[in-house]
């Protein structure tokens, strides 16, 4: 009668199964035979239940690990395939280069050979090593996101243009070689070159610049203005630099749907 609902509920829920047996002492207990068999069967059923449960849990965890292992194996296999094919691409490119050189020397077309080299340099499809400049420029030390004290795509464009003016035969920004179809542009907070986002500091390398040209002072002036107006940190080094080969992007042409229009 007394006590809370919860107490009554607890008392009923945990009621003893053997209340009846207490009032009426077990007469069939211990007589063996039928009741012993029932007991053995019941406990045997419990054992079976336990074993089945253990096996089913283990089987499902096995299935999970084997699935995971299979996925890991596929990932490693595919990355091995990619690495192998990149190797093949490098080999083929070298072979093409060698065959072309062989062909040109065998026909004794030295003029054509130099023309090919010149065009390859102009198209930025070969590596270039030579004396040149390295310009390093970085945001102002106290620059905040969105402020003008950061290096913008316009700044990189101006620097690259002044390097071209100085007679550079090849320019790369953060090891992204500039080709005829390269663009330096901003996308939100990032600067993209060849559609690749760059990380600061920005390192612009150029081969073939002559500091005697008029561009030299233009570059100097540009960097000074950027430093004094916006606090950008920059440095210029003269020395041998190596530029990686650029990627040749074949233009895609739009086609009219109507031939005679």
């Amino acid at each position, binding site marked *: 009668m007394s006590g809370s609902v919860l107490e009554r509920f607890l008392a009923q829920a945990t009621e003893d199964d053997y209340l009846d*047996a207490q009032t009426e*002492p077990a007469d069939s207990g211990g007589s063996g035979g039928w009741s012993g068999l029932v007991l053995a069967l019941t406990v045997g059923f419990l054992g079976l239940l336990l074993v089945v449960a253990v096996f089913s849990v283990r089987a499902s965890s096995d299935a999970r690990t084997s699935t995971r292992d299979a996925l890991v194996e596929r990932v490693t296999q595919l990355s091995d395939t990619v690495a192998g094919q990149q190797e093949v691409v490098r080999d083929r490119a070298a072979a093409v280069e060698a065959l072309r050189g062989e062909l040109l020397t065998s026909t004794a077309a030295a003029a054509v050979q130099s023309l090919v080299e010149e065009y390859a340099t102009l198209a930025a499809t070969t590596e270039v090593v030579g004396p040149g400049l390295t310009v390093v420029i970085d945001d102002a030390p106290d620059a905040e996101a969105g402020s003008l004290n950061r290096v913008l795509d316009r700044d990189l464009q101006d620097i690259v243009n002044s390097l071209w003016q100085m007679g550079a035969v090849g320019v790369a920004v953060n090891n992204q070689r500039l080709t005829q179809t390269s663009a330096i542009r901003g996308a939100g907070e990032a600067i993209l070159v060849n559609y690749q986002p760059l990380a600061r500091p920005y390192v612009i390398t150029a081969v073939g610049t002559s500091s005697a040209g008029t561009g030299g002072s233009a570059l100097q002036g540009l960097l000074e203005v950027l430093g004094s107006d916006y606090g950008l940190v920059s440095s210029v080094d003269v020395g041998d630099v190596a530029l990686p080969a650029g990627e040749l992007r074949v233009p895609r042409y739009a086609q009219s749907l109507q031939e005679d229009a």
Partner: protein
Amino acid sequence: MIAIIGLLVGIAVGVLWHPVVPLWMEPYLPIAIVAALDAVFGGFRALMQKRFDDRIFAVSFLSNVVIASFLVFLGDQLGVGAQMSTGVVVVLAMRIFTNAAAIRRILFKA
């Protein structure tokens, strides 16, 4: 004694036969085991108090297993399967603790 032999035979049958649980039965297996454990603890307590009864043990064992599984099945059909299994497990665990406490009092007088 006969109970231990029965348990060993059941385990041996399970290990040798290696039954595959049908997928629809898998969610009820843990509940059934907890219910069976409740009956086992109850039986153990009764044995300590010298009022064990084979018939009550077998009936409580089987009815516990069947009713617990049925409740969870019903909950699944009604869309409250997870809550129902929680409730069943809570009640059964409570009973197991009560029985274990009684056994402890008898065994250790504490």
